[in-house]
């Protein structure tokens, strides 16, 4: 994205040396340590094992780090706006309308006592996009856009009445009503079976293509990310250990990335013994 910088337009997202720390009674948990990357209107994948700090990175960008957490960064800019010094009111105006995030678990991320439709309508109202009938129409359109078969029926359902895949798509619909410029998708497909997974990916892909949206795609599935994204960041222990163009993932140099690639199951031939990820404390230094 240095090309954009040269042309004078700031990159969509510019993160330098981002760290998230949780001072707990038992000591300080370093969830994210010194993450830096630049994102344009493209698809960026973040992969890494569970607990490597992927979700924490996404939340920190949106200013949603939960209580004792401390976010620090040399630079955290969205479209030229400094997110770290932004007053809460301005930050709220950005959320939903300009940056949005599909959260990891739709079971917990939807209000259990509100119907799906009411929640999307509420999102419209909060973002002052539309009210009354117009908001309802917009919600139905959005549900249809994420390929929900019977939007009218799903509109009136409560989250516990949805299947995992429907919940995930309802969540995506809710987060996309504001037509954000940047979407952070936190494992949007992990709970889904392969066919629906592909459908959801296609929806996201279309949105990136038609709206020129920037996408941060968080996943632990290296192959999926490689096939879907333009660039991939590999995280380990709160750090980015490698950044590669998706097309050249095969040439990845870092032993952790190679280990991740090596542990993916293969169709042809059997691997014995099964490879085990090697972790070197030196990578964290």
């Amino acid at each position, binding site marked *: 994205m240095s090309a954009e910088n040269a042309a004078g337009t700031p990159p969509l997202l510019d993160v330098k040396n981002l760290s998230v720390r949780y001072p707990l009674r038992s000591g300080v948990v370093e969830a994210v340590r010194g993450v830096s990357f630049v994102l344009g209107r493209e698809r960026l994948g973040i992969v890494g094992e569970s607990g490597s700090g992927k979700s924490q990175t996404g*939340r920190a960008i*949106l200013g*949603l780090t*939960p*209580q004792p957490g401390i976010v620090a960064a040399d630079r955290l800019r969205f479209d030229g706006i400094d997110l770290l010094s932004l007053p809460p009111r301005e930050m*709220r*105006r*950005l*959320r*939903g*309308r300009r940056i*949005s*995030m599909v*959260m990891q*678990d739709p079971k*917990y*991320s*939807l*209000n*259990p*006592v*509100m119907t799906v439709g009411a929640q999307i309508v*509420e*999102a419209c109202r*909060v*973002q002052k996009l539309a009210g009354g009938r117009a908001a309802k129409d917009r919600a139905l359109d959005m549900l249809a856009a994420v390929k929900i078969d019977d939007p009218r029926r799903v509109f*009136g359902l409560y989250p516990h009445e949805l299947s995992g895949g429907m919940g995930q798509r309802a*969540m995506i619909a*809710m*987060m996309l009503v*504001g037509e954000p410029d940047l979407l952070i998708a936190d494992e949007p497909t992990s709970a889904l079976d392969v066919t629906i997974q592909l459908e959801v990916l296609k929806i996201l892909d279309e949105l990136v293509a038609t709206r020129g949206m920037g996408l941060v795609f968080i996943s632990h599935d290296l192959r999926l990310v490689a096939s879907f994204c333009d660039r991939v960041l590999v995280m380990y222990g709160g750090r980015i250990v490698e950044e590669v163009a998706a097309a050249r993932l095969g040439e990845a140099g870092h032993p952790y990335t190679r280990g991740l690639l090596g542990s993916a199951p293969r169709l042809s031939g059997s691997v014995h013994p099964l490879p085990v990820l090697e972790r070197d404390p030196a990578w964290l230094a």
Partner: protein
Amino acid sequence: MAVPTPPAAQHDRGLPAPPAGLKAWLTSPAPASRTQARLGRFYRGWRGFVRNPAAMAGFVIVLLLLVVAASADLIATHSPTVAGDLRTERLLPPGGEFWLGTDDQARDIWSRIVHGSRVTLVVVLLVSVISMPVGLAVGTVSGYAGGVVDAVLMRITDIFLAFPRLVLALAFVAALGPGIENAIIAIAITAWPPYARLARAEALQLRGADFIAAAKLQGASPLRIVAVHIVPMCMPSVIVRVTLDMAGVILIAAGLGFLGLGAQPPQPEWGAMVASGRRFLIDQWWVAAMPGAAIFIVSLGFNLLGDGLRDVLDPKAAER
């Protein structure tokens, strides 16, 4: 032209005949519509409620109170406020003409009790309507905001909780001036703190929830999150608590009336009626005992109803 439908055709449509199978329809494990599921849930709750005789007794008492209050003009045999013949009708014992006797103003006690039920209901309703939103608002804001806001609001709540309710209500009525409206305000002022505590506890649990983070993510302001997402979740437990408190409200209202700080004469308020009968307690016991019994029965009814409702609305409490 009404062509008689052969029974077979009716059967073919596969619709269960509602009147005959109403119970089956309500208890169907696979409800066909949202309404049916809702009615079914309501029905199951009702069944649990009916099986609890104490709750049922409370329900009947409260229902009777409502009926009496609604049709007070029909049920009352005399005027509740206009005195009768002071020479011949004063302090008469219960009998044919005056069912529950008469008081020292020669007024029919039955009619006064019947009309007094309206006063009692109005007090209970208004106190609930005023104190519940206040308690909910203070509690949810306090729990969600945390920090200084929480500390300040909760210390204020603590101050209110540090006094016995009747004493606090007395102080407020004394400051506001006697009268039923001021009594209602005073009772409401003393009633909200427990609701605030309850709502705060639930808000504390909710504020870290993912769906609250999702709402923040859409750019919702803190006040909006409290109003749209937190308050509805705190509502059920607060409502149960309010119904449980209704008996207490009746007693405090009666207490204030007894002390002459509630409803003013000649308004037929039960507590005030007990107070005026106090002077004749030995010889004309019915003047004080009848309204006293009314207070007792109605507050018992609300207590039983509240307990039963809690069991139905809050399955966790019922299992214990």
